[in-house]
């Protein structure tokens, strides 16, 4: 790490120099130390400290705890999926990316490893959780539209078209669906085996995605990327 920090501080020093110095607007009389001074001092200070750490760490450095091969797989998977999430969200959208990230990581973690023979389960699980969340999402959108239109047309009192009421209804509906899925799956797969972990991961993926959508999109009106979900 000290070598990386030495490199960083050196690059920072060169970058600050390349930027040149600028003075405060209206500094005709002079006196402003300029924009370059503090960053230069910082980069020199960082470099000197990194060099000091490089020499002291070499003598006292301790090795951090080693990961098992399974943990290495899981760690790499987490890093890769996190990268893919950030890279793909603009094109695929919030719902597909979030749902797939959650299923992939939950299932792999619960299985305690990433194995070749689980590829089928990863693919089908991602599809199932995506379909589930899209069904719930479409259902929620329909409810929202029905209430909004009906209240605007005067079929229902204005209260039923208020954001708070619609969020409450969608939230309760989602909770009901999730509860039904959980109780049905619990009866079907009650033992701690791969199938059990598979449905647990699907449920977590679709339920978490839908709840996050309700909170951030419906409650706080954050413009979540739609991506391929165009309806």
């Amino acid at each position, binding site marked *: *790490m000290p070598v*990386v*920090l030495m490199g960083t501080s050196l690059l*920072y020093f060169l970058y600050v120099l390349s*930027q040149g110095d*600028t*003075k*405060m*607007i209206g500094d005709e*009389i*002079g*006196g*402003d*130390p300029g*924009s370059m001074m*503090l*960053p230069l001092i*910082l*980069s020199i*200070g*960082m470099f000197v*400290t*990194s060099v000091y*750490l490089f020499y*002291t760490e070499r003598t006292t450095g301790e090795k*951090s*705890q080693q*990961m098992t091969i399974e*943990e290495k797989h*899981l*760690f790499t998977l*987490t*890093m890769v999926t*996190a*990268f893919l*999430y*950030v890279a793909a*969200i*603009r094109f695929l959208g*919030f719902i597909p990316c*979030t749902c797939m*990230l*959650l299923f992939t*990581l*939950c299932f792999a*973690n*619960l299985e*305690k490893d990433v194995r070749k023979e689980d590829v089928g389960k990863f693919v089908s699980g991602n599809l199932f959780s995506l379909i589930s969340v899209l069904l719930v999402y479409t259902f929620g959108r329909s409810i929202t539209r029905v209430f909004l239109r009906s209240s605007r047309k005067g079929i229902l009192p204005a209260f039923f078209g208020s954001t708070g009421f619609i969020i409450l209804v969608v939230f309760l509906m989602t909770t009901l669906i999730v509860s039904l899925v959980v109780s049905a799956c619990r009866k079907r797969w009650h033992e701690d085996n791969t199938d059990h972990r598979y449905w*647990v991961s699907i449920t*977590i993926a679709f339920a*978490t995605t839908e709840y*996050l959508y309700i*909170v*951030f999109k419906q409650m*706080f*009106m*954050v*413009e*979540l*990327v739609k991506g391929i979900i165009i309806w």
Partner: protein
Amino acid sequence: MGSTIAQGFAQVANISTVVWMAIGSVLGIILGALPGLTATMGIALMIPISFQLPTATGIGLLLAVYCGAVSGASIPAILLGIPGNPNAIATVEDGYLMMKKGKAGQAIGGAVVASFIGGVGSLVCLMFFSPLVAKLTLAFGPAEKTTLALVGLVIIASISGDNLAKGLLMGAFGMALAFLGTDPFSGQLRIPFAKALAHTPLAKGLDLTSTLIGLFGVSQVFAEMRKINQKTRKPAKVRIGNVFPSLKKIISMWKIILSSLGIGTLIGAIPGTGASIAVFMARDAAKHIADGSNGKLEPIGSGCLEGVFAPEVANNAVTGGALIPTLALGIPGDSATAILIGALMIKGVTPGFQLFGQNMALVYAIFITMLIANIFMALFQIIGVRLYPKILSVPSQILMPIVLVLSFIGAYAIAGQATLTGIYNLGIALSMGIVGYFLKQDGYPISPIVLGLILGGMFEENFRRAVKLAGGNYLTFFTKPICWFFFVLCALSIAMSVVSRKRKAKKV
């Protein structure tokens, strides 16, 4: 003054504040109870939600998470013998012994009562001292403010972690990050590839919330993934039994309560110290008090309520204490309050010099929300006392992916309607998460980076102003007594840190 208090009360007297604070409290308790999740991380994850709420409600939500998480850490300490986070590290010995004796309910109930006393007691100190400290700062000019920022940076760098050089290096790294973006005085772009990035959200510098979420949320997920398959201790079947300790017992511990309250508030008020130091000092003081009580109090370490009370009063007293420099000076007491400052700044509120002069109603609103946060913390911990063993059995295999997604959506949501900014924020959170992870793995403390990031702007702005006002004379900092006071504080902090580390090394 009466009307200002009324205005402050009006800011929080609405159903939305109460509901959000109740949610924050429950979330905080759960976050604190789950090993691996910290108060700092909880606050960082809640900033995007608080950003969408009115200022007082948003701050109330964050304070509720803060108080809940500090107190909730005692639950696994008592039930599993593992502290939820370092705040409850001194509660383990007596709390776990009490659980083994079949007094888990008494231990948790005692911890709740102690946390409430600590929280409310330190709030009284906060209400009394913070306006006084803020008043003193009216005499501060740019030179004094520069050295004050330096004090904050040096103290936190010298205290956090085991290596002074690493702390200082991280503080400098945070400042370097703070300098990215647009120069506040000349408008010049100070980012690499300035031409290419001039029209992107990066031109404004690194988004503070995304950086915090990356450093505390994403990096923690990566760190936990390293040991995801390690066997975790699950709570055995716990008999909760009676929850509340008797009033007589509480009164008999008044000396322990007062000393822990004083220690917690004082330690909390010193920037960079935090609860993990206060709890051991309080426990040590309580040990002396119990030993000298002629048998009236049970000896600390024997599985007694005294051993739970002392650290729990102290760690919650830290919450109020840490808010004194946070609100009055804009210098955070610990990493959690550093994030609170970030949240206030996002809301356009600058803590410190101006807050007490210009927005006293908000200050009172913060005091009131702090009181509500403590009441909710006690209430929800008592109500949910029988649920905690179940919460503790949620595996981190499920928890960590959810935390990762929460971190990402938190960084994204802060951009609101601007989707492109949101995507840039995601990139910042991920990059900072990776940086934070590798730094943590090598024993570099993260808190000084946050301090550098928050105080860097204040430092540069006041430094340049001070030198400009002095006509380019850099010695201006050595001509003012307040600056000298701060320089001495910096030197003392470094000296004490070196001495204590040498002592520690000798002991080992």
